[in-house]
């Protein structure tokens, strides 16, 4: 079981309560596809991913980014059992989508940077640590059902 301090719990709830999912989700996914272009391999049917502008303006990327962020919501509301919260999604990503689990970390890093850009100075080192710990637990849980 993951141990969360009061500060960590409060920080995660606070950050997510202030996020516009329809903005941050698309930005995080788009950033991942731009910064780590090999991740585009999973989105062959998304149309034009030819350059940064195309990726950022792509409606399928935006829609999927929002979906992903809403998926994170499950962990935010279930911090004491993130492992089991993502059993099905882990199986899905492994068996059906065949996504290399290393990619989860790449997206998590991009999300951290999007949140940092949005919050600016308010995103302190301690908040960053809490946010990264949360995402690390999510990433591990998503990789758990791979075999």
């Amino acid at each position, binding site marked *: 079981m993951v141990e969360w301090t009061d500060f960590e719990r409060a920080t995660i709830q606070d950050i997510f309560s202030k996020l516009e999912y329809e903005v941050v989700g698309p930005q995080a996914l788009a950033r991942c596809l*731009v*910064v780590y272009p090999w991740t585009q391999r999973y989105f062959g049917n998304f149309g034009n991913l030819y350059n*940064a502008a195309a*990726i*950022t303006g792509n409606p399928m990327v935006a829609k999927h980014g929002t979906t992903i962020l809403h998926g994170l919501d499950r962990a935010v509301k279930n911090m004491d059992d993130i492992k089991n919260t993502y059993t099905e999604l882990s199986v899905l990503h492994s068996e059906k989508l065949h996504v290399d689990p290393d990619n989860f970390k790449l997206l998590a*890093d991009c999300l951290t940077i999007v949140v*940092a850009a949005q919050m600016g100075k308010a995103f302190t*080192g301690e908040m960053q*640590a809490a946010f990264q710990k949360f995402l690390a637990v999510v990433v591990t849980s998503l990789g758990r059902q791979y075999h």
Partner: protein
Amino acid sequence: MLSKKERELISEIWGRLTPVAEDIGAEALLRMFASFPGTKTYFSHLDISFRSAHLLSHGKKIVLAIAEGAKDISQLTVTLAPLQTLHAYQLRIDPTNFKLFSHCMLVTLACHMGEDFTPTAHAAMDKYLSAFAAVLAEKYR
């Protein structure tokens, strides 16, 4: 591979940050110590508390080296030669830590630049810092 545009972008960003080198450097280090406590083991001989003299001077050194390298990325191996020797034979910092520091530097840049830290700038910066770290570790073995 860094394109000409990317090199110019990187050079421009670091040129702008040189006047606040110690703030940027100290912040990146602090973020790294908070998120990755194992990295503190390399600093047991220094005072690395919030904006301590050691932290500021150390942060400044690192950022100035990164900025210097950014002026002519094609010459990175030449520019970093003395630092290569220092890290290989004296400091012997495990190169995994370079990745951790680079990540925290990117977060620091995002906090300071906000929207200006576009996906394109982020990609270029990540590539540059990776190249910088690779050159730094070249003499390790």
